């Protein structure tokens, strides 16, 4: 197997005076969906934000596609092929849906075939194409946030809890869209609380606790072992 698209080696991150990440080791294999799981407040979001460069690693290395991006500025990281769907969706609420999408297509005009593909996954975006994004419903905003990352081809997608607030029907279309992305050769690092989605999409899984990755392995292994889940996340995921 080729080298991973993304590798974190002993990453420590501070936010103000708090030590949040305390030595995260993590690999995202090429062409796979890698899950990042764990309870609230263990550092999942912080990990993604450190990769994209919003927080700075105090120690450790981040390798993307073989290059050290630890100290690169955020725009450079993004331009090297990383798409980001933040936890708070990061919608530009004063801009229209269209303007949000135009901005997301950083390297040129929007590819219309790709746009059609996005519309089939998320029909409301088409309906509200000219509306102010701030007026969208919670779920619609979530769709827009994912669509923005997908509007251009990227090597790696960092996606933070994309299904929160989505209706079941949309959750399935979104899952399908992510699978298609993977089929196109992209790699995905996905934070998810919805275990059904995790099970359906994940190839490998990493479980975090207290600023570290405490377990990693195949998703199938985790989803098949209720005892392991209980130990790692304090609760059997099967219950939900």
């Amino acid at each position, binding site marked *: 197997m080729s080298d991973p698209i993304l590798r974190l080696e002993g990453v420590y991150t501070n936010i103000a005076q708090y030590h949040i990440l305390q030595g995260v080791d993590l690999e995202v294999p090429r062409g796979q969906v890698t899950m990042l799981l764990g309870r609230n407040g263990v550092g999942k979001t912080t990990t993604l934000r450190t990769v994209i460069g919003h927080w700075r690693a105090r120690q450790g290395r981040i390798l993307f596609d073989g290059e050290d991006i630890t100290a690169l500025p955020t725009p450079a990281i993004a331009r090297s092929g990383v798409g980001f769907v933040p936890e708070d969706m990061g919608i530009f609420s004063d801009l229209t849906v269209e303007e949000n999408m135009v901005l997301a297509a950083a390297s040129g005009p929007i590819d219309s075939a790709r746009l059609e593909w996005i519309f089939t996954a998320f029909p409301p975006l088409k309906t509200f194409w000219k509306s102010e994004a701030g007026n969208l419903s919670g779920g619609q905003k979530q769709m827009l946030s994912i669509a923005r990352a997908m509007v251009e081809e990227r090597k790696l997608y960092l996606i933070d809890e994309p299904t929160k607030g989505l*209706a079941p029907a949309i959750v399935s279309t979104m899952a399908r869209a992510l699978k298609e992305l993977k089929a196109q050769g992209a790699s995905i690092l996905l934070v998810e609380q919805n275990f059904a989605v995790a099970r359906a999409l994940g190839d490998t899984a990493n479980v975090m606790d207290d600023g570290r990755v405490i377990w990693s392995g195949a998703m199938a292994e985790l989803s098949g072992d209720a005892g392991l889940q209980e130990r790692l996340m304090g609760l059997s995921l099967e219950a939900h």
Partner: protein
Amino acid sequence: MTDPILETQDLTVRFGGHVAVDAVSCGFQAGELTAIVGPNGAGKTTYFNLISGQIPATAGKVFLRGRDISGQSVSLRTRAGIGRAFQLTNLFPDLTVLENVRLVVQSRSGQGFNLWSMASGHAEMVEAAEAILVRVRLLEQRHQVVSELSHGNQRKLEVALLIALDPAVYMFDEPTAGMSVDEAPVVLDLIAELKAQRDRTILLVEHKMDVIRTLADRIIVLHNGALAADGAPAEVMASDVVQEAYMGKELEDV
């Protein structure tokens, strides 16, 4: 059946030409937990906004205990007994967790215009607030500033504020979105507790079917702003409208 506590009559709102909530008439009984489901953008949050007064209705009326409150401001409706937790977290970000809850307790005590006593001198308010933080398991974080909380914990605080307000009508908008599997039950248990009190009216917007199955007495379905179905959970869940427009294909089929 007794008269409903909360009732909406032909409640409608339009944004430009878009009818986001379309003549919804519905009543809610005390002690009943009604789940509101519908696709994204169906108008659920907007319906809540109309009831709690965040946006004015284009047409239609809202009644609380038979009294027309359509013209009243948010704060008046809140005082009259309509409480609300928001879908997108909406807190006092630079205040501490404890102060957030304490402010709600203070609001209920009617001390807001007290200019002369010392706020820190009202021990009973602090105690009441701490009791609520214990219930949502946030006591440890009570001196943390809200903006430093992780997303999941902010969601819990959002619920805590509503509980502190203790209104006659509770409106939860996707309370567990973004909560981890071991935290969500805390909130769901709280809701179940409220329901067991039998004197509170609870409206719950949720996309998680298992949650609805265990908690709801009744489900109403909004679709394109209109009331598309209303009835007992099993019956509504099985209906075509829910299956087609809402559930879509099961995930496993993807």
